[in-house]
């Protein structure tokens, strides 16, 4: 009888122990799952102490001159092409209105940004006709604004075909007031058989905070 009671007691302890193991295993599993699901999402997290002042990062780029518009015109009679250039501010062999400023883009935020630019169209899509040309030239409007790492092939410091995919121009475009603005000039060659009518393209700038 005594032996039977002892066995029953041991069985009860065994059941309790098994339940404890299951509960403990579940707790460890939940902790592990929580940890591995949170850690990859952490970009920055506070490890020690507390902060009583937070300076928010604010990225804002803005085309302070957001339009290049040569108006209406045509290739002069007797000429095969007209040349429109915002950098020199001239129109040659055509009667469009000269544009003396290109686009101006400023970083108005409080962080440096990686600046990506893209055009919506190629020369053929924008102008049409035989051998049209459509190029941009990007440069600092304020010295030291754009830290360029890719060279003039993308248009920084020289004429280049605008990219229809987003490419990095400045890394970074700085935010300090005295050095936070770039200028984008355009050079368009309009052939005599160019597509008639209103022609336009959209330039898209994307600034992503570097920190």
């Amino acid at each position, binding site marked *: 009888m005594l032996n039977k009671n002892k066995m029953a007691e041991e069985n009860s302890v065994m059941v309790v122990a*098994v339940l404890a193991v299951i509960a403990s*295993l579940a707790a460890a599993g939940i902790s592990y799952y929580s940890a591995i699901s949170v850690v990859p999402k952490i970009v920055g997290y506070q490890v020690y102490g507390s902060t009583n002042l937070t300076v928010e990062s604010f990225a804002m780029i803005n085309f302070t001159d957001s339009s290049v*518009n040569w108006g209406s015109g045509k290739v002069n009679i007797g000429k095969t092409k007209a040349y429109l250039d915002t950098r020199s501010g001239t129109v040659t062999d055509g009667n469009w209105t000269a544009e003396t400023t290109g686009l101006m883009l400023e970083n108005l935020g409080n962080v440096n940004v990686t600046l990506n630019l893209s055009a919506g169209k190629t020369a053929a899509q924008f102008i049409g006709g035989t051998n049209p040309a459509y190029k941009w030239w990007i440069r600092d409007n304020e010295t030291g604004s754009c830290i360029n790492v890719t060279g003039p092939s993308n248009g920084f410091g020289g004429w280049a075909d605008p990219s229809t995919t987003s490419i990095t121009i400045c890394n970074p475009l700085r935010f300090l007031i005295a050095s936070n603005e770039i200028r984008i000039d355009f050079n368009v060659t309009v052939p005599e058989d160019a597509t008639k009518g209103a022609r336009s393209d959209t330039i898209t700038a994307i600034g992503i905070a570097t920190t």
Partner: protein
Amino acid sequence: MDTKKVITTLFVLVIIFSLLSITLNLLYGGKTIEVVSKPKSVDKAQVGLFIEGRETGVAVTGNSISNVGLYVE
């Protein structure tokens, strides 16, 4: 199988899993986690012109008619 050994083993497992759980909670639990996404800004600009049709016609770039003559009696 000795019941005592089984029970002892089970409790050792309980202790191990509990310690593991405590460790994970100490490492990652109870912290203020701030997920920081990088601020982003987008702006657009326009480049455009209107291309007119050219007038049709003939351009006269030069014209010259000369008569050279004499009368011989």
